[in-house]
């Protein structure tokens, strides 16, 4: 079934331009993930094709196209070593789209490009979560779909504005149907198969720490997680969210090469327990930031490591919620094992020699562990140490340089130097990274922990007590730990200051509350929420089967309404009350056996009535009256005419 204006006919330049624009817009959300050369290739292909089309020429010859295709896809494989996975797949799809643009000639090519645009949009959403991204992509679908309008070609005029309006109307009619499907389509608790981890940017803290790592995070306003405390809220100074615990130091960088002894040692809790819900943003790491010493959590596949990190097997790639309970104060139930002690007192012997020497001198003066700790903290507090976001860069002997030369550092520098000083004195010490503090959102009663709250501190082993948290940064910059300025957001705020305007801060909190609502209601919408919805609909004992039944019912209802609405537009517009009355008159006369012939004017009709059916003289008079009303000057008597028509009851002629 081919048609003369069928798939093989060349498309207009404007159409080509539009679909290229759509492709460009579809690639914008992938901008950061795609290799630069892929973007370049697609852009070049589109430019070349448009240039040729502008000069009235067809697609470049097949040989060139094949060559470019082989080259580009080969290069892509060399880079990714696979076409599986989201990033590689997206890159491949983009390249294919670019090559398709290069050969785009006909209606069919435009259709294929539109499908690619649709799929690229979907791929952007697989890891996306913002409302604006969805809105952007829906707008993109709108434009792309409008491009498909009248492609087969006999529109009265190809008018982009009316085409856009029409496509928009269809999209608007699709929205309720999509909503029903989305609300009621059964969700799977588990993915169908394990998606390959595609190295899509892990965000936030990593499991290594070099001087300067955390400084970069401190400038980021991104949300790491949000917390809702069930009853009590721990004091601001005590809100330490523990993340990766680092043991291995090479003089410059702290690492976590292995998790050490597998089983978490028993702890004796002291003080109150805190129950809270974490709403964690995806970060592609497999550890979960929890308040100090967790005692219970509701993730079946998460467990505590020997150094009390909460770890699960899969990286967090979707927003998740965790309900957990933690204690702020604990006492070790068992002494430190020899292996652990050895591990947490190890230092590279040939690095940071000045620090080693200094530590030995200080230790000689303070044989008691706590005295020694206090002496180190006093040194930070009393000497000319500065807390700064932009410390000088440090080389291999980072602790030496920091302690004796630059004396300017961010939390990572202090934590690193402190742990080194402890180990040099034989006290087991480890660096803990995570978040500290958080800002309260009084509009929605939760705490926001941003990347700018990233922090590093130390834990040291004190005999008879266990692991004790020491935060050397607090000795230098107590304001970092105290609530106050830091609650306003990023570290930048503390230094620049223009964002201190209270209304601006309020607005940001309100926006964040909305974002949290979006996350709870939309991103986290799952089977449980669906069953709850059925409960609201007063369906007894909701389960998966009933869900499907309700979906079928709702779908037929919406589809029926939709069909009705679409058909309704077919009805001719009853514009004129006079015409409406006349149509009624004609219907009545037709019922009386005196139908008006098609294309018979009102006057001619009246004449025919008078001639053939003298008994209907009143009706004939009304027809003449209609003619006067319709083509004459006065419109005032429309109501009277309508009443007269209504009052007329013509009888059938007797045979």
């Amino acid at each position: 079934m081919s048609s003369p204006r069928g798939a093989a006919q060349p498309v207009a330049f404007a159409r080509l331009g539009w679909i290229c624009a759509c492709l460009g817009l579809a690639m914008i959300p992938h901008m950061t993930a795609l290799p630069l050369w892929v973007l370049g290739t697609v852009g070049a292909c589109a430019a070349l094709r448009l240039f040729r089309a502008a000069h009235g020429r067809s697609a470049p010859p097949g040989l060139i196209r094949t060559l470019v295709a082989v080259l580009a896809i080969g290069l892509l494989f060399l880079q990714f070593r696979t076409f599986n996975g989201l990033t590689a797949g997206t890159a491949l799809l983009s390249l294919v789209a670019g090559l398709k643009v290069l050969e785009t000639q006909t209606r069919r090519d435009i259709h294929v490009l539109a499908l690619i645009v649709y799929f690229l949009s979907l791929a952007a959403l697989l890891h996306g979560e913002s409302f604006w991204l969805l809105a952007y992509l829906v707008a993109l679908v709108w434009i792309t779909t409008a491009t498909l309008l009248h492609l087969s070609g006999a529109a009265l005029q190809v008018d982009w504005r009316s085409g856009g309006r029409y496509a928009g109307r269809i999209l608007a009619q699709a929205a309720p149907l999509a909503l029903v499907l989305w609300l009621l389509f059964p969700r799977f608790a588990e993915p169908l198969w394990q998606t390959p981890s595609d190295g899509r940017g892990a965000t936030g803290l990593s499991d290594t720490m070099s001087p300067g790592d955390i400084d970069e995070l401190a400038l980021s306003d991104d949300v790491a997680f949000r917390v809702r405390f069930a009853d009590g809220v721990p004091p601001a100074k005590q809100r330490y969210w523990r993340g990766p615990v680092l043991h291995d130091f090479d003089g410059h960088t702290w690492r976590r090469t292995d998790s050490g002894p597998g089983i978490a040692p028993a702890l004796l809790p002291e003080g109150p327990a805190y129950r809270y819900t974490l709403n964690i943003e995806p970060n592609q790491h497999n550890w979960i930031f929890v308040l100090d010493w967790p005692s219970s959590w509701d993730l079946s596949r998460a467990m505590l490591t020997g150094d009390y990190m909460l770890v699960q097997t899969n990286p967090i790639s979707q927003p998740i919620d965790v309900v957990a309970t933690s204690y702020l104060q604990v006492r070790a139930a068992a002494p430190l094992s020899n292996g652990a002690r050895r591990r947490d007192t190890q230092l590279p012997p040939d690095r940071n020699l000045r620090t080693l020497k200094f530590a030995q001198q200080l230790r000689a003066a303070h044989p008691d562990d706590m005295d020694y700790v206090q002496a180190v903290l006093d040194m930070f507090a009393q000497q000319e140490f500065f807390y700064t976001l932009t410390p000088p860069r440090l080389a291999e002997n980072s602790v030496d340089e920091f302690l004796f030369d630059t004396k300017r550092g961010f939390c990572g520098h202090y934590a690193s130097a402190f742990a080194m000083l402890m180990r040099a004195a034989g006290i087991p010490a480890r660096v803990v990274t995570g978040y500290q503090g958080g800002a309260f959102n009084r509009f929605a009663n939760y705490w926001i922990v941003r990347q700018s709250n990233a922090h590093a501190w130390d834990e040291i082993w004190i005999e008879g007590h266990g692991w004790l948290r020491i935060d050397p940064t607090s000795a230098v910059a107590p304001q970092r730990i105290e609530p106050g300025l830091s609650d306003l957001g990023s570290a930048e705020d503390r230094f620049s200051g223009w964002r201190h305007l209270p209304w601006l801060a309020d607005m940001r909190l309100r926006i964040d509350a909305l974002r949290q609502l979006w996350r709870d209601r939309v991103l986290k919408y799952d089977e449980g929420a669906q069953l709850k919805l059925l409960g609201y609909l007063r369906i007894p004992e909701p389960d998966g089967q009933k869900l499907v039944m309700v979906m079928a019912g709702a779908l037929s209802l919406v589809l029926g309404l939709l069909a009705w609405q679409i058909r309704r537009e077919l009805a001719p517009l009853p514009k004129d009350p006079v015409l409406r009355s006349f149509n009624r008159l004609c219907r009545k006369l037709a019922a009386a056996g005196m139908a008006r012939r098609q294309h018979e004017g009102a006057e001619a009709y009246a004449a025919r009535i008078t001639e053939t059916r003298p008994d209907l003289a009143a009706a004939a008079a009304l027809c003449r009256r209609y003619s006067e009303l319709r083509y004459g000057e006065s419109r005032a008597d429309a109501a009277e005419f309508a009443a007269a028509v209504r009052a007329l009851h013509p009888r059938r002629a007797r045979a």
Partner: protein
Amino acid sequence: MKSLRQAAVDRLRAWSARRHGRDTLPITIHRRRIYILPTRFGLMLAALLVAMLIASLNYNSNLALAFAFLMVALALVAMHHCHRNLLALSVDVHAETDAFAGGEACFEFVLRNESRIERSDIQLRFAKDAQSIGSVAGNTHGRVTVCVPVARRGVSLFKQFELRTDHPFGWFRAWTYVQASLTAYVAPAPRGERVIAAAAAAGGTALRAEARGDEDFAGLRSYQPGVSLKHMAWKVLARGGEPMLRSYSGLAANPEWLDWSSLDGLEAEARLSQLCRWVLDSEAAQRPYGLRIPGTELAPACGREHRSACLRALACFGIEAPR
């Protein structure tokens, strides 16, 4: 593959013909006779939608799922719009123009749209190489002319025609078959060098009249549509009179007979071609002419209707008249 599809299409046509019976024109398209199927682009989209759903479910991404469902809904709504594009449209075949062998037979379809929406991209077809596409704005009617090449003289009969549309996005195609005959009378190709023989006594006069040209003004006769504007009596019209034609003595007095029997020594088809040539020439020159072929005789006259009757007689010569 192709033949398989063709076979399916043929069966569907036959079934639809049995189901609806003969139609009388004009016909308003009822929803029960509209068929709809996805096009190959629609099938491609369907495959894509399945892929989208699987990807979204697998990545457990609610936003992606919402997007995929929006696309599903978009396709469903587009299907309704495609169906509606034909619904309640009324069709008539308005007029057939004269067709000559080796040329094209053209039919003018009138699409009457009594709704307020525009009917876009309506394709009309009655044979593989006879199709045309057009649009009709709301509350108006539009004309679509469909031409089919005709190779041989005779009567071409198309028993049904088809309206189809893949509006709005080309994902679905709705179509309907109308069981109404389209008849094209294909006159022979006008061909031949002979001059009109003097079958009647005044034949010679006619030749001389042609030689002398049109100057021999004889009087006025009433206007007939289709006559060359050269013969209009413009002065009469300008004075506010009825449109009149000037007529000429030589022509009015001596009708020509275009006679089959005057063409000795030619084959039947060649004779018909020559006669056709003469009909067109005489008509163009506004000379009254009569046609005489075995079995048929048309009295001398002039004008569009007479010309059509002559051409139809030539087309039907030796062929059983269609129902």
